[in-house]
């Protein structure tokens, strides 16, 4: 298959962005209109309370286990590495031995960080201990 030769290849992405968000937002609005006209309504107040969190609705703070923040930090470390490796992988044949040696060094440094995280127990799931 041949590539398309157009001046603005990202134009399609933009139109897709506008059309999909528009179409799905319009779907929710249409659903709201249809349900206002057709749905059985029940004005009992307790119905609006949230599921299995007590009948009286109170505002709850969004507190989660610090375990998840550890995984977020690990993600930052390793995903930035991958972003750095993408252009290297595309130009791999062009860069030759020099690029390969550089990347081996980079992976070595990351492996040290990875072993440190492993030994410190950052990869364990703490709540099951």
């Amino acid at each position, binding site marked *: 298959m041949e590539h398309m030769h157009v001046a603005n290849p990202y134009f399609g992405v933009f139109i897709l962005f506008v059309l999909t968000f528009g179409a799905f937002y319009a779907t929710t609005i249409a659903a709201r209109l249809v349900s206002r006209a057709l749905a059985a309504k029940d004005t009992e107040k307790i119905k609006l309370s949230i599921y299995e969190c007590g009948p009286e609705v109170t505002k709850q703070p969004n507190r989660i286990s610090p375990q998840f923040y550890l995984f977020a930090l690990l993600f930052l470390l390793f995903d930035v590495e*991958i972003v750095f490796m993408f252009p290297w992988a595309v130009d791999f044949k062009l860069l030759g031995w020099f690029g390969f040696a550089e990347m081996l060094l980079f992976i070595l440094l990351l492996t040290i960080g990875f072993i440190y995280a492993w030994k410190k127990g950052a990869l364990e799931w703490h709540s099951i201990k």
Partner: protein
Amino acid sequence: MDTAFIIETIIKIVVILLVFSALAGFGTYFERKVLAFMQRRLGPMHVGPYGLLQIAADGVKLFTKEDIVPAGVVGPIFKIAPVITAATAFMAAAAIPFLPEFTLFGYTVHPIVADINVGILYILGVMAIGLYGPLLGGMASNNKYSLISAARGAAVFISYEVVTGLSLLAPMMMVGSLSLIDFNNYQAGGIGEWIIWSQPVAFILFWIAAFAETGRTPFHLIANDHEIIDGFGTEYSGMRWGLFFIGEYANMFFISFVMAIIFLGGFGDGTVLGAFALLGKVAFFFFFFLWTRAAWPDVRPDQLMWLCWKVLMPIAVLNIVITGIVMMF
């Protein structure tokens, strides 16, 4: 930019939206049928012949449900979260060549919305944005189960993002491009040239990560029924809840296309046979998602993280290094 190009782009987008919205609907029907046959049941049979009109009945039901926004939720975020899930799932379609190019009324049609040169990076990026749907929906719901689901979903998504990226690096080194069209052309020579034969490890890694990225059953912790009810979807009802499902099934179809094009040769040299072969491969991958759901139980969250960080990621890095060494000699 000429008018013909703009009109062509808009027509392609509308076709993709319609076809894949319908396929996402039929995906639920296929799933119920496949699961039923594997458990020696019949599945939906009453609405239409063989239950084929079941999705129409489901659609009517979703649209006519009462529109409920529970007390205490953060309204605007709660309402926009399903739209984000569905829309970002469809945005991944922009860089995927769905069929070989064909001629219609003397005009050559390229069945790809945007032929951008960073295709795979774009697809990975848009799928990562898709995380915001469950995350925002769960955090805005004012419900503990939704909140746990949102946190778990974020942890699983970002962990397996690392595996997805690393496993795709090795094929990228061989092809030297990020465009899925170049991946397809690289394997145009026939079955012997498919990347799966030279990169079997990368294929298996990406396949496993695809289950986590789409939230399918062995890794379906984001809405694990017996622990956290319906996860981020607990407080949703009606069409807002349905949009989460459209997004999930569309994601399954698009990631099947990506796997078939990157590892299994795509549509090859672009004949009609090749186009049907691509659709067959996509159908197999989609069926495999359903098959796994019937055959496997869910894993625990700690097992999921163990698998990602201590098994898959070191293998992926080793795979890159070995690929580099083999290519240099």
